[in-house]
């Protein structure tokens, strides 16, 4: 066991008025200060074996970063224990302790020492670190004269000289461009191959899925589930949502004579549950509930997908050759997608129902509904093209 977390509790006391001087404290003794206690972590326990790579996911404010900081010994638990064997290096922020008035070379030396890399341990010399960051010509330049991108590169190439048993990573990957993130991943993969135990806090579920063997899901400071990554991410995305606003019926987003009324629209996930969050390539069904006040023959139901303001896709029952027949009373129409070709983002949906010749609008809900798609592939963009590669050498 490399990391053992036992019944960990952490609460912060936040005073209504903060006293930072002795004077305020003495005066304050007369009237007691009121504290608000926020319990950020509640009874967290888990164990990590050597060489495992663990993802920690959860909504904002679920306690991910606090947990990581406690494991890094920066914050101390209110109750409970954390035991770590071996050398631990936190990557909570790159370039901690960088001094803008020192030169590149001097900063590498100080930063390496801060990250716990002794002279002997610097695998490459300081020169090689600077070369790796692509700053060979800037050795004696003061740090303040470098661009922020250069500074991040320098910090990263210094930090990765470390030779830890346990590596703690907090959203470091969120900074920098695609190329830099790629570099980060290659480095972490290398650490993983070398048997380093890694804890990764991230919002990038795709990264967690690619990279982590097991994942811990936190919700409101409690351990929701700690298991293999795929099932945890499914749980996270497809969990029932308690609070989601029902669509508002604003007049400029809804029109029609309401002979047929669309009463509700739901998205259904692969577990046959109503949901607004989906993983790309998973099944999705849009269910349109209607109530027809007249007997109407073969009305046409339509659907449009938007991404931001881009009209992505539109279709109708008529285009697809689906005859709705005589419609009267309540019912629903399903638009079934077996393999969602969307990659990531929030998609808005318009649903409408019209007469068979499209001349009469019964009900039109303009972009009233939306669902989110989370990526688990490495593909980029909005939608995926179902293609594969083939290489021919001639």
């Amino acid at each position, binding site marked *: 066991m490399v990391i053992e977390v036992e019944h960990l509790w952490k609460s*912060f006391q936040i005073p209504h008025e903060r006293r*930072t*001087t*002795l*004077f305020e*404290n003495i005066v304050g003794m007369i009237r007691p200060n009121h504290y608000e206690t926020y319990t950020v972590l509640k009874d967290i326990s888990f164990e990590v074996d050597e060489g495992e790579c663990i993802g920690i996911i959860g909504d904002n404010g679920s306690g991910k970063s606090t947990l990581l*900081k406690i494991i*890094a*010994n*920066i*914050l*101390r638990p209110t109750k409970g224990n954390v035991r770590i064997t071996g050398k631990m290096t*936190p990557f*909570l*922020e790159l370039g*901690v*302790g960088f*001094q803008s*008035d*020192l030169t590149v070379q*001097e900063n590498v*030396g*100080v930063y390496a*020492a*801060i*990250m*716990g890399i*002794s*002279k002997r341990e610097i695998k490459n010399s300081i020169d090689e670190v600077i070369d790796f960051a692509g700053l060979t010509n800037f050795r004696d330049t003061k740090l303040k004269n470098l661009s922020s991108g250069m500074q991040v590169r320098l910090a990263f190439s210094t930090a990765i000289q470390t030779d830890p048993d346990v590596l703690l990573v907090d959203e470091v990957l969120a900074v920098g461009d695609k190329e830099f993130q790629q570099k980060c991943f290659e480095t972490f993969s290398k650490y993983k191959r070398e048997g380093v135990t890694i804890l990764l806090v991230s919002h990038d579920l795709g990264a967690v899925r690619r990279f982590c063997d097991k994942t811990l899901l936190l919700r409101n400071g409690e351990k929701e589930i700690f298991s293999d990554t795929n099932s945890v991410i499914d749980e996270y995305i497809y969990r029932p949502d308690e609070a989601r606003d029902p669509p508002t019926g604003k007049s400029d987003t809804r029109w029609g004579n309401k002979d047929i009324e669309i009463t509700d629209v739901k998205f259904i996930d692969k577990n046959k549950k109503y949901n607004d969050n989906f993983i790309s390539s998973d099944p999705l069904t849009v269910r349109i509930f209607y109530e027809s006040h007249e007997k109407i023959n073969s009305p046409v139901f339509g659907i449009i997908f938007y991404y931001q303001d881009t009209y992505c896709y539109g279709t109708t029952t008529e285009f697809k050759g689906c005859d709705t027949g005589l419609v009267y009373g309540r019912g629903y129409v399903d638009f079934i997608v077996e393999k969602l070709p969307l990659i990531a983002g929030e998609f808005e949906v318009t649903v409408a129902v019209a007469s068979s010749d499209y001349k009469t609008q019964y009900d039109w809900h303009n972009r009233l509904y939306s669902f989110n798609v989370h990526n688990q592939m490495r593909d980029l963009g909005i939608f995926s093209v179902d293609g594969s590669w083939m290489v021919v050498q001639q």
Partner: protein
Amino acid sequence: MYRELILRLAWSDFKLRYKNSALGFFWSLLEPLLMLVILYIVFSNLMRIQVEHYQLFLLLGIILWNFLDRGTSMSIWGIVGKPSLVQKVYFPRDILVLSTCITALMMTALEFTVFITFMAIFRVMPEISIVYFPILFIFEFLIIVGLSAALSALNVYFRDVQFIWRLIVQVGFFATPILYPITIFPENVRWIVMLNPMAQILTLTRDCTLYGIPPEPLNLTYIALSTLFVLLLGYFIFDRLEPKFAEAI
């Protein structure tokens, strides 16, 4: 294991203090010299203090007191002034205090080059008793570390500690025999002044450096014990307050 980190931090801080002025080192020496000239004129001519080698007596007092003043005043900011080193990485936090004290030590070492020059100019040859100088100097350093540990930790929670400490240092400057020899006090109150370990260190350092008088074992023991007391108390306070630094900073 952390020796390299302490030295790196201390050295980079030292360099930063002079980095942007070519005459940086020179400026740092000017301050004690200016003080020396003013105090010398005032006390030697106007107040008529009669002490052998009064220039050197005064300069040594100023340098040693400056060491305490500077070491503690810089260390008060040692934790509060470096939030990212407290909140984003972990190493034992007393390293921040130690490295600041060592920066002050480097600055004081620089001032001692002036003192040595002055000794040469006034042709004062140190005698064998000079061997006690490093011992006394180390005791002073440890007192500074102890005070700094307590002050830097307290300043995280009570930001007016810095102002209170400035007042104490000001009072201390006059209550410690820096401008005057201990002998200006009547025999029966001297022991009260000498309860202050800094008064002992200053007096004994001058005796062994300028006048060839080795310190009494009793005095040395008193200094050693009070140093130990300050150091332990300082670290006790620091250890008590350290766990919540990252939250309170």
